[in-house]
């Protein structure tokens, strides 16, 4: 099992969720984050001061997936989240040792 962590543009959430759904991923968890990278932020003006906003609003999607759907899930994300412009984000993959569904106590892929 893998934990897929994707940083995406906020307005892409619905597309990514649908794509993941089609790829067989049934659940995910979303966090509002601020991202710093190549993409340039806008300049904000406040009285007598200008700030370049380095940190841009992004969403972090975490989805635990079984090894079967892993490849499909990765592709789903990269396809649905892209716009081709700087700032589309990244996908990180981490190995999952274990998954438990709290409600039932199921473990492993059954818990997904």
């Amino acid at each position, binding site marked *: 099992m893998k934990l897929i962590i994707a940083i995406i543009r906020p*307005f892409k959430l619905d597309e990514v969720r649908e794509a993941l759904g089609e790829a067989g991923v049934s659940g995910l968890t979303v966090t509002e984050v601020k991202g710093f990278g190549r993409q340039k932020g*806008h300049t*904000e003006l406040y009285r007598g001061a200008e700030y370049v*906003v380095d940190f841009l609003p992004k969403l972090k999607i975490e989805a635990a997936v079984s090894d079967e759907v892993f490849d499909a899930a990765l592709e789903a994300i990269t396809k649905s989240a892209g716009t081709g412009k700087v700032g589309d984000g990244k996908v990180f993959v981490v190995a999952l040792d274990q998954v438990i569904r709290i409600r039932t106590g199921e473990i492993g892929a059954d818990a997904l």
Partner: protein
Amino acid sequence: MKFLSFSGWKTRMQALGLALLVGVAGLTGTFDVLAQDATAPVAEAVAEAAAEPVVDKGDVAWMLTSTLLVLLMVVPGLALFYGGMVRSKNVLSVLIHVISVFSLLVVLWIVYGYSLAFSGEGAWIGNLDKLFLKGVTIDTLAATFTDGVSLPEYVFVAFQSTFAGITGALIVGAFAERVKFSAVLLFSVIWFTLGYLPIAHMVWATGGFLFERGALDFAGGTVVHINAGIAGLVGAYFVGKRVGYGREALKPHNVTLTFVGASLLWVGWFGFNAGSNLEATAGAALAFINTLVATAAAVLAWALTEKLTKGKASALGVASGAVAGLVGITPAAGLVGPLGAIAIGLAAGVICVWGVTGLKKLLKVDDTADVFGVHAIGGIVGAILTGVFYAPGLGGLGGDDFDMGAQVATQALGVVMTIAWIGIVSVVGFLVAKLVFGLRVSEEAEREGLDITTHGESAYES
């Protein structure tokens, strides 16, 4: 009385414009039939005759208070009402639109607005004698509805300036979250000049076309609300739907703000309605209590309608209900009794729920803050029902010779004329703005939000 049919989208708007022109022309032919003595208590802008007119300090106190209450309706009232309904990335743009349009129109009011609206007795528009308030001094007076009772003219100028300002500010809610700021300002000037000033003159000034025909509009149901609602609708069509409309949840970012806005609209509306009496008399008190109870009734009506039709009464609903009730009672405020006011409030509350749901779906328009569904629909309900509840038998102040059928027809005439006139002017205004600046920001800017992209700041930080 005929209503217009139209087809198409870009062509639809063109057709609409043409149809409205034709419709107006047609209707004009029926004016004499509808015409009747102007017994309605509407203002003679400036006292001219009136040997030794009296100024009462109580009137001045009330009218200054009323004027600032109308300002309170705009900022922060309307700004918050709309600002809460948009997403947080666009809230500042809405606040800026509201205060800028209001400020612009108030300044233009001094420059030429007051003169064109209230100087001279033409049927359609005033004259330019008071350009830059020429001749208005600390000693000149404006008439009230009572012979021999006057107000300092500055009071009347200031009071009326806020009406122009709020009407323009109301419009911007319809196409918020994607419109260009420059286009909003340009449109506002065109609409103010060709739309607001003529209508205000026609309805409120001596010699005005509708004024002379006895159309009843106590505090601006047509001049302000139908006007703003129609201009908003046209604007929403021209500017187009928000990206994501119909697919994503374009939710209010802060319903609490919207509630505060609606509350301040209620509070301020007493200036609007009871202030329109121009004197601190029992007439103002009647307009006052009507504004209180009609709104209360509309809050309950909207909540109940939502509960019955959707299972739940929402906060956005009670806030909208309050505004619907206020809009509905506006033309009737000083003319009907409290029970009539409650009836109007209930009607406006129920019908405007349809205005922002069923009708909105029919119109296939993305009217961000439902300016049309609440202000135009509520305004029409109020205008027509004013002709009904003005009847003495229903508690209204109409005389014994009151003819409900004729009055309702006159009211409908006022409504249709306003819709037609403002419809056409708005089409012109948005076409010009589109040509000059373009109406919409880029899709990317819309996604990122107007606050950052147009105004260089974001509303909230931690």
